[in-house]
């Protein structure tokens, strides 16, 4: 990049190539570290994504980083037994700061036994005031639900809770 900026006209093409290669390299790096992107691209096409075991999801989202226990830092509220898996209320409240040198950047909700375990991702800013989120989710079957908090320095904290699901919230009768 520096070469590109300092180059005279004769070497502009070469510098441009360097710049292009660097740019491509950066974008592929970014693919390996999706958490580093401030706001990752959501699935906006509506095309279904392939099924994924939870280990693959965790690896895709967090790589090989260690995930510490968030006991005492993150509170997760879920019903013990959800009669309707199609509408399960979940509340996650983290007492970690959202401003300052180390702050919360993302909160992920992951259901282990769902076919596509990453359910929702919340990206907080300093104006949020608190890392808190509550929503209603669908659960396929009795499963652990994890809440993973990612700090801006890459540290990860997670808590999980088991929910017993009576009626699946994801299974539709097969079409055709």
């Amino acid at each position, binding site marked *: 990049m520096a070469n590109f900026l300092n180059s005279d006209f004769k070497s502009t093409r070469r510098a441009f190539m360097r710049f292009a290669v660097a740019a491509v390299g950066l974008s592929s790096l970014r693919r390996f570290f999706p958490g580093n992107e401030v*706001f*990752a691209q*959501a*699935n*906006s*096409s*509506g*095309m*279904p994504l*392939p*099924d994924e075991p939870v280990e693959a999801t965790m690896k895709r989202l967090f790589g090989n980083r260690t995930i510490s226990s968030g006991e005492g830092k993150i509170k997760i509220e879920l019903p013990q037994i959800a009669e309707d898996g*199609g*509408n*399960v209320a979940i*509340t996650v409240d983290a007492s970690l700061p959202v401003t300052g040198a180390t702050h919360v950047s993302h909160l992920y909700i992951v*259901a282990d036994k*769902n*076919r*596509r375990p*990453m*359910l*929702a*991702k*919340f*990206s*907080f*800013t*300093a*104006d*949020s*005031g*608190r*890392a*808190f*989120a*509550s*929503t*209603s*989710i*669908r*659960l396929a079957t009795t499963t652990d639900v994890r809440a993973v908090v990612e700090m801006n320095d890459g540290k990860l904290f997670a808590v999980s809770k088991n929910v017993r699901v009576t009626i699946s*919230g*994801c299974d*539709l009768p*097969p*079409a*055709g």
Partner: protein
Amino acid sequence: MAEIGRVSIRLPSSINPGDVIRVRTLVIHPMELVQRDKQGKIIPKNYHFIHTMTVSFNGKEILRTELTQAVSQNPNFTFPLKVDRAGKLTVAFSDTTGKTYEGHAEVNIS
């Protein structure tokens, strides 16, 4: 479902400056589920669901949420908001048909 995209926002009745309030919001949306054929294979098509929720306060983006089909039909959300001064809150939901549904609320300090 003629009402698809209706957004309602609820704020606490009294807000003091500096408070971190909890905003409740609800959007009417089918959040279409993945369909499978008899072999259990996913039927590839464009499913109709909300993929992003964006919250802005006085024009500044303060929260972004990435959603999937594993979020319930007619989903509700509660999120925090730090209020230092009165202003306009906008919650926008974008779905996979390219539509964006917005809800607005005036945040008044009492």
